[in-house]
């Protein structure tokens, strides 16, 4: 019998992930059940204060906003990404077009947000253009509202949705659509009832890649959002760094993590059942 070196190979990762991921998560979990200290720390005394504080009306509104903004961004992203990736997959120049999707995908995240500030800001390109045309007398505030947050999130996540959708549409056997049409289905019917169900795994991946990071978003609302569009991520940061309410910051973190994990599990289950029910992709040659 050979010696089992498995634990030795794996120990460094196990130690690292435990020390810098599992324990920090455990710490915020414990902190969420403690009392807030007067000067910003925690008092080591069991309390549900941080959870009862979640029922605060302001926080519920923020949670609703977070859900609304991330869901709207996801839907808009899909509405653009589905036909666009269909076009790329059906095109003769798919390599060129994919390349065009990958460039914004690789451009720095903050630069992509900044591009919108440069366009929509009060001193931005759009205001300058509209004023030089004499269409508006003074700069209009396009930024710092929920629409700006949604537009920038769509911009940020669109490549993440197009790439998995492209990958599934590319594998789809289009003779099935032709067959449906030969059997009397209309063009719309053949798209909605043959193509769409068959590319469900791709759609679910696209939703997962868009909705989950959008739901936990911090930077976009921080930079282009206003008071009406702050999300849970921003409240966590505010409670931690401004109000110094560690237990509350921790309890919101726990809830955000729980919702995200439930979301991922639901999507992955959908994914598995979709993959099981859609064997109709082209056999590899």
């Amino acid at each position, binding site marked *: 019998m050979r010696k*089992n070196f498995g634990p030795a190979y794996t120990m460094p990762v196990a130690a690292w*992930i435990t020390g810098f991921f599992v324990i920090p998560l455990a710490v915020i979990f414990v902190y969420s059940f403690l009392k807030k200290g007067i000067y910003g720390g925690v008092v080591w005394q069991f309390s549900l204060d941080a959870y009862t504080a979640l029922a605060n009306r302001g926080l519920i509104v923020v949670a609703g906003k977070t859900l609304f903004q991330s869901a709207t961004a996801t839907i808009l992203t899909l509405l653009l990404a589905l036909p666009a990736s269909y076009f790329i997959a059906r095109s003769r120049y798919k390599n060129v077009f994919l390349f065009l999707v990958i460039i914004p995908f690789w451009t720095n995240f*903050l630069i992509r947000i900044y591009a919108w500030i440069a366009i929509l800001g009060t001193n931005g390109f759009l205001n300058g253009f509209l004023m030089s045309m004499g269409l508006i007398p003074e700069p209009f505030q396009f930024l710092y509202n929920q629409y700006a947050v949604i537009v920038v999130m769509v911009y940020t996540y669109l490549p993440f949705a197009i790439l998995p959708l492209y990958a599934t549409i590319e594998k789809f056997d289009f003779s099935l659509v032709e067959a449906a049409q030969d059997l009397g289905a209309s063009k719309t019917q053949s798209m909605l009832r043959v193509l769409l169900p068959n590319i469900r795994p791709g759609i679910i991946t696209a939703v997962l890649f868009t909705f989950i990071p959008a739901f*936990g978003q911090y930077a976009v609302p921080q930079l282009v959002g206003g008071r009406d569009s702050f999300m849970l991520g921003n409240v966590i940061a505010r409670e931690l760094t401004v109000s110094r309410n560690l237990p509350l910051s921790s309890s919101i973190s726990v809830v*955000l993590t729980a919702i995200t994990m439930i979301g991922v599990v639901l999507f992955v289950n959908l994914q598995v059942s979709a993959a099981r029910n859609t064997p109709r992709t082209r056999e590899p040659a």
Partner: protein
Amino acid sequence: MAHDTRRTSLFAFVVTMVFFYAPLLVLVLFSFNESKAMTWSGFSLRWYGDLLFHSRDLWHAVGNSAIIALSSASVSTLLGTLAAIGMYWYNFRLKNYVQVSSFLPLIIPEIIIGVSLLIMFGLTGMRLGLLTIFIAHTTFCLPYALLIVTSRLDEFDYSIVEAAYDLGATEAQTLLRVIVPVSLPGIIAAFLVSITLSLEDFVITFFVAGPGSSTLPLHVYSMIRFGVSPVINALSVVLIAGSVLLAFSTRGLFKYLIRN
């Protein structure tokens, strides 16, 4: 193929491309603008001059980013590869724990990772700086490195390891002559992905960085907060050009990685 479907999809594609590139083109155009304003007043390269010669803090941040990216990508690739090999080669009790706990960082919101590390660094009295950024980056790169090398090894027939043993190879020989060469494309990919993730990261770094340890994304963030600046326009163009060049130059590399 149906004409109206083609027209609708062409329309969506054109909208997507305009949506992608119009903002980037505006940045490119105004990086050559003479005045500070976002209205055109004449061609000039002065903002590129400013970026090169009058942005010491920015270049300091670039240096920090490079140090962090190289060190955290190296450590996470090394540790991730070791763990992937160990879990491919052997079965043991720790395996399940590592699989689950190293998958979770992939799905947990970035802000939670940043906040929990910040709280823990506070608790242990660690001074925030390059070291804490390095720790954070290695933590979020490790799961990717592990995943990439594991998926490379999964495609690979285990009987070749057994064959190496049957032919008298020792553990070390099997590791260095069989397993490492086989996983090399995965190791390279893991390193490149880790570097990219590290250079890109803003949210987690934002929480664990201390005074004087700004990385490029943090520096860009602090500049953006003061609104439109022509120097950021110039920097954006440099970074966009960088991603175009990277996309071109890595095409060959990706073909190599996919082929192997």
